[in-house]
């Protein structure tokens, strides 16, 4: 299990497989600096919760079929307000979660066009 600490002091305990979807976290685990939990100074608790929700769903082999995941993603991304979307992009960028960054950026692109 890995512990993540948000910028506003919330802690989240999640399975390693879920957390490793973030390349940033994966590097930290490799470099073995996760003793007391990982502080994420750039991510608030609210956003971190959303990110964890996404990562849990997308854990390899756990979430469901490709079709189901697509539908879930659509629901996920369409039900958040602009402020959350904005912060998710920044957080996904910082945490280096490619699929989430893709999803959020595409959402913004769709909104613009």
């Amino acid at each position, binding site marked *: 299990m890995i512990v993540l600490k948000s910028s506003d002091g919330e802690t989240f305990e999640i399975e390693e497989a879920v957390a490793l979807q973030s390349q940033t976290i994966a590097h930290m685990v490799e470099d073995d600096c996760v003793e007391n939990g990982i502080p994420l100074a750039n991510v608030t608790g609210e956003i971190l919760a959303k990110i964890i929700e996404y990562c849990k769903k997308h854990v390899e082999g756990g979430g469901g079929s490709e079709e189901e995941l697509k539908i879930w993603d659509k629901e996920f991304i369409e039900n958040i307000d602009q402020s959350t979307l*904005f912060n998710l992009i920044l957080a996904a960028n910082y945490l280096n979660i490619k699929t989430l960054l893709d999803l959020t950026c*595409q959402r913004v692109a769709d909104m613009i066009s």
Partner: protein
Amino acid sequence: MNRVNSLSDDPNWTSLPKDIVLDLFTRLNYNDRASLSSTCSTWRSHGSSSFLWSSLDIRAYEFNPSIAASLAPRCANLEKLKFRGVETADALIHLKAKNLVELSGDFCWMITDATLSMIAARHEALEVLQLGRSELITSDAIRVLAICCPKLRKLHLSRLRDVASAAIESLAEHCTQLSDLAFIDCMDIDVEALGKVSSLRYLSVAGTTIINWNVAIESWKKLPKLTGLDVSGTSIYNIDISKLLESSKSLEVVCALHCPFVSYDRVKGKALLTRFPNIFDELSSIFDEKPKDIFSYWRSLIGKDKSIDEKMHWIEWSISLTLQRRAELEGMDDFWMDHGAKLLLILLKSSQEDVQERAVKALADIIVIDDEDPRIDLARVDLVLRGGGIRLLLDLANSSREVLQSEATKTIPNLAANAEAAKAIAEEGWINVLIRLAKSTTRLVAVEAIGALWSLSEREECKTAIAQAGGVKALVELIFRWKITSHGIMERAAGALANLAADDKCSADVSRVGGVGALVKLVRDSEYEGVQEQAARGLANMAAHGECNKNNTIVGQVHDALEALVKLTKSIHEEVKREAAGALWHLSFHENNRESIVTLGGIEALVTLAKSYATASTGLQERVAGAIWGLSVSEANSIAIGDEGGIPPLVALAKSEVVNVHETAAGALWNLSFYLGNALEIVELGGVPTLIQLCSCSPSRMARFISALALAYIFDGRVEEMVGARTTSANVYECFFLAAKARIHEAGHIRCSGPEIGRFVTMLRIDCPTLKSCAAFALFQFTVPKARHARHHASLMQNAEEAIALKSVAADTKNPPEAQFFAKFVLRNLVYHAAKL
């Protein structure tokens, strides 16, 4: 634009890191990028990043010198450019893209030597030049190209008349890096000179007609680096190929597809691609392993071995070229069924965009039987379907490449002709994608997507899917967004809406999102007949479906709608007149509309239209008769129609063998015949025998019923006095009961007005047994509980007088048994409806 502005309110989107902003830009088409760049200076500067301006594909966009000039400041480091057509080619130099490395263009048939020379002169760094169908180019321009662009590595030209030795020698002399050369579908090439281009690794002369093979082989075997040769579609012989393969150490692959004089031959250590399925075996000799599925195997290995990748890329390119050219020819049925279709599906997954484009175009070509015959070859569609083609095409439509999106989408209308394929199309998720593409600001993409929606919306199962995915709203918004002169878009959008409006549930959606206003806008403002036709059809369907009267009110209330429709009945185009008449027909069911139509000169217009029945299609005949029927409900209108001269054409139409036509004509005559003047005219024109004929012989029970009623009106005692035809009255009686037994299902659809019901009640009192029976029978049809408008009719007969008249008929034993019987039933029906009211 509004949405983008609101994005800048809260949160502060301009504070996004640059690389994310650039990622966003790459997901947008050029129009949207331009919009985004103009929102604020931060994004303007991001939008000018050289990252976004290193490669451009302007094929989907309009381009001219002034547009080029405005883009020039950002194109200083432009490396790759794809363009289309001669106008764009002429304007290219204004981009001042001095560092351009790759230039490729299609539809180049009007590009002249002068243009090409100018382009060459201004782009000295050019390494790759590909021009499709560059028919007007001559050797002179090639010489200029060679001199101006010494870094040229890859040159592909096609359809040249001749390529002289001077040109090729010039290339050999100046372009020392030239490794990939193709002269495709040319007439005459100096093959000896080709032997002097010693840097060549890949050479294609596919489709070239005049080649002296002996000379060619002698020259080419000296090329030290020649690895791949494409002679597909030429008159080469086996012996020439073997000679070359034996004498050239470097040569590894020869493509000789569709060469009439070549048969398959195994040459050790080399790959000779002559026909399918052998080419798969041959290709496997390039790899160390012998995989079954060559292309997926190779694609999983891309990047590991550059020289194999280079060969396979070139092979993919050659095959796609050959297949695309062959797809444009007719015949070759076995080939496509056995291997060709499968190969095209494999090529759809290529990593090279131009290979994918050719594969899609070829697919589109092979599923249509031929140019003359637009019918679809269902067997081939089946093949595409079973090979997973629908999904592959969807992936292309989902790519961000606009030309690919448009080509993939173009295949859908034809594929949908096969019912199973249509089902797969809906299930794979095409509808959502089409709706998204339909909203694109790029015309090339939008027009094909809307066209596909038009085509899919013809199928019952797709209508609901389209409506549920938000298609109706999207279509209506489109109509307001694009200029009225965008005929292609407007016609397709109106066509799709018209199809959707033909479904009761979907027509409610159309109404709810302002679809009626959109259709009226087109009917009123568009000058193109295709648009007018579809929009009028849309209004006709809206009026005929959903809650009939509700839609009718809505349409009638839209300003200018009825006026525009009346105007369209005077169009010179048959289809426009037909749909306008159809719309007026359905709209005339509503009283307010009737009044408006008449005020707007509808009667004159429709009667004039009716008079030209001899040259009209049966569809038009039916609708104009129907519209006159609709208007003829009131006395004033009936008389006006008669005065205008409406009766002769109607009597003529009643003689039509086409059921729909004589049915509606009979309906109009039925209403008109109530008024003496009209009735007399009908008799004088010989309408009676026609009506009797209909009454006894028409395949339509409704027609028989209506014509009997018309006869009943004519012979209600008044006319007979003048004409003295008692015997005809007896005929009527017989015909009447030939016409009907018990319930006539179709009669249930007729909606009578108060005065019409009143007439029947009046007939009950006339001292003529035939008429009493007819009237009682008619009222029975109109009030039977299952009839659509039964309750409405019953509500018109709630007064005491009607009941009295019915009771008296029922009770009087002097009346024929049918009269009594039906009168009793009508009374029962009235009681039934009264309880419900």
